């Protein structure tokens, strides 16, 4: 079958045509650079997303601290990840890039602060 997907690796957003058997990628066309087929393969076989959200803070100069996963995590894990993020409350100062939760959900990525809070 042919699946039409939009590549999201950069703001251009190439419309890719992916020939797939349902589980694996056979061929990719429509890409303007080499990132396209890599993205297509990942997106069809195991879609990944970077999660961004905020965690609550107490006793710091911000009420919430924005966070991100250091690398993309499986799209299927987003709901579980959000539930875990909601449980976190920061009480100590953080800097941009500090790890808030290492090996988050055992997925081999860290949950990292994207803002300074003191």
């Amino acid at each position, binding site marked *: 079958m042919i699946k039409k997907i939009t590549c999201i690796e950069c703001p251009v957003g190439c419309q890719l045509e992916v020939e797939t058997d349902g589980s694996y990628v056979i061929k990719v066309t429509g890409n303007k650079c080499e990132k396209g087929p890599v993205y297509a393969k990942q997106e069809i076989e195991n879609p990944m997303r970077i999660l961004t*959200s905020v965690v609550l803070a107490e006793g710091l100069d911000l009420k919430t601290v*924005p966070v991100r996963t250091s690398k993309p995590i499986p799209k299927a894990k987003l709901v579980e990840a959000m539930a875990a993020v909601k449980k976190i409350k920061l009480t100590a100062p953080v800097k*941009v890039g500090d790890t808030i939760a290492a090996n988050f959900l055992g997925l081999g990525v860290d949950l990292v602060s994207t803002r300074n809070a003191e």
Partner: protein
Amino acid sequence: MITRDLVIVGGGPAGMAAAVAAQEAGVKDILLLERDQHLGGILNQCIHTGFGLHHFKKDLTGPEYADQFIKKIAEINQGLGTKGLGIIEISLKSFVVNLTKDKVLTYLKPGKFEEIKAKALIMATGCRERTREMTHIAGTRPAGIYPAGLAQKMINIEGLLPGKEIVIIGSGDIGLIMARRFTLEGAKVKAVIEIQEKTRGLARNVVQCLEDFSLPLYFRHRIAKIYGKDRVEKVLIENTVNGETFELTCDTVLISVGLIPENELIEMACVEIDRKTNSPVSKEVNKCSVKGIFVCGNSYKVYDLVDNVTRDSVKAGQMAAAYLKGLK
């Protein structure tokens, strides 16, 4: 009255980039006025990624993008800057209330009332959102109708959830981003309503914000009426092609239909403003009808990417530096 060489109004990405560029071009006396308690401007609430792909060749969140400049300014102020000898004085919680043609600014901060003159002025005051009130949407005026950016601030800065069942008007990037944000926070986004035939936002946002969560996007539809006495109860959606309508129950309507440059201050200074766009009438980027006043970032024109804001605001800083040199 104190005279400063360069005053910059606005400490978001535009103001910060302009400040750094001006310092690196040799301006020694810079005052940056920011009305919030932190630098960063609107980026502080844009916690999602997609910033810096061009400028830093990295996929950063809004706060991370802002931090690059906050760090640079701190370095400069600690004497660790690699170019220029000046420092960038930051005044937070500082609200400019008046501006004259002669570049005299009046600003307020808790406990202080200041009137200063600027030799050169860079306005980086950003923009405001189009609200429900600006276009007539028939119906009532209940609680629960928010411009998308306000909802974003409530969720991301204040940790509040504005609503549980959302209908979003407008498929621009802010609307799409908020569709995802609400969904991740456990709310149900019933629909995104777009009056044009295609989305105004980036394709990647349609994928990551709508397709990922199977959220319905209706093209060529408009919101015809809002119902609800005290809080939104439902909306009437109209297909603009065939006139058919349907109702969607919801408790929140998000309005994401455009931004307006915030230029009321330069209007006070008799700068010529284009009535339709609220941008300064301008023949060259960052310039306006008054010499020595430069406008950059979203208050100059509404940008799609902050990378381009940085590119042009650096120019503004350099232009201000050149202008000051020319005055001597």
